[in-house]
């Protein structure tokens, strides 16, 4: 009996991510949920610009590559065209929380019936480690070489907190993938975000705190610890909005 294997919704190709990058875990969780809900045949995924730009090569469902930050608008077009499709976006922090803020805010405000997987690793990975809107105060990056100075470039953007006062969104939760327990919680949240769409409940966003060992300049193991020590204190995990019955927020 197979206890664990690669989900079918992931194609059998190697991922291009750096060793220890947790994008791979998040890809797998999304694919596991697609398998479990048996929705691969009607799912359309929207890939971002950033490290996950080639996600269209990894998921076995239909895929569209969006321009930087525009995935929620593209997803809106797809969902409005074919409401029977299950539509998800997979976006990083530069994509969603910087250049794509208008698109994500208004998709949430419209309660667009889509699922958003927001990967927050506090850095621009693909372009080689520049400061992200979510980079922490003091975090050293290529474009904040003396550490992020809030006097110069403000404070990191908290997307779940920012979207939660809107009437629109159905469900907002922040999870992390830096431990076995957290990965299992993340899976539960992602599953709920897809189920909400299946039940026509509307906009669901799961923010996943992820690691970038390469650009953080640490081992994969230390990167997971850095999430515990630095990311989660600033970006507390939990449900920020849930309109479903019996929801605990």
């Amino acid at each position: 009996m197979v206890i664990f294997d690669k989900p079918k919704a992931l194609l059998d190709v190697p991922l291009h991510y750096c060793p220890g990058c947790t994008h791979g875990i998040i890809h797998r969780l999304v694919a596991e949920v697609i398998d479990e809900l048996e929705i691969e045949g009607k799912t359309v995924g929207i890939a971002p610009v950033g490290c996950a730009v080639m996600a269209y090569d990894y998921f076995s469902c239909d895929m569209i590559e969006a321009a930087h930050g525009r995935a929620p608008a593209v997803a809106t077009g797809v969902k409005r065209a074919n409401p029977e499709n299950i539509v998800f976006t997979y976006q990083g922090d530069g994509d969603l929380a910087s250049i794509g803020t208008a698109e994500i805010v208004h998709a949430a405000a419209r309660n667009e019936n889509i699922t958003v997987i927001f990967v927050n690793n506090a850095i621009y990975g693909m372009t080689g480690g520049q400061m992200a809107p979510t980079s922490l105060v003091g975090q050293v990056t290529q474009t904040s070489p003396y550490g992020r100075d809030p006097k110069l470039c403000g404070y990191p953007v908290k997307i779940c907190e920012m979207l939660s006062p809107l009437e629109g969104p159905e469900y907002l939760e922040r999870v992390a993938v830096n431990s076995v327990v957290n990965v299992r919680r993340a899976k539960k949240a992602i599953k709920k975000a897809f189920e909400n769409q299946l039940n026509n409940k509307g906009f669901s966003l799961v923010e996943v705190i992820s690691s970038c060992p390469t650009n953080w300049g640490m081992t994969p193991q230390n990167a997971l610890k850095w999430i515990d020590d630095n990311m989660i204190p600033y970006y507390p995990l939990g449900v920020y909005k849930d309109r479903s019955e019996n929801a605990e927020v």
Partner: protein
Amino acid sequence: MIKLTFRTDFCKGCGLCVDVCPKKILRIAPDTINKKGHHPAEITEMDKCIGCASCATMCPDCIIKIEKE
């Protein structure tokens, strides 16, 4: 009886599986190099595996398959 198999050529040797194993029976193979040029993960004592799937849960590259016989 638990059986672990690795898609060795997909492994990047990050070692996240090694760290998380409660039985400490995984390691990064010191003398093997895969197609990608990484030292891949391997299991040293299969009979001690409890099938908790912690390794597979943390593997970013989906290389671990776990079966129970």
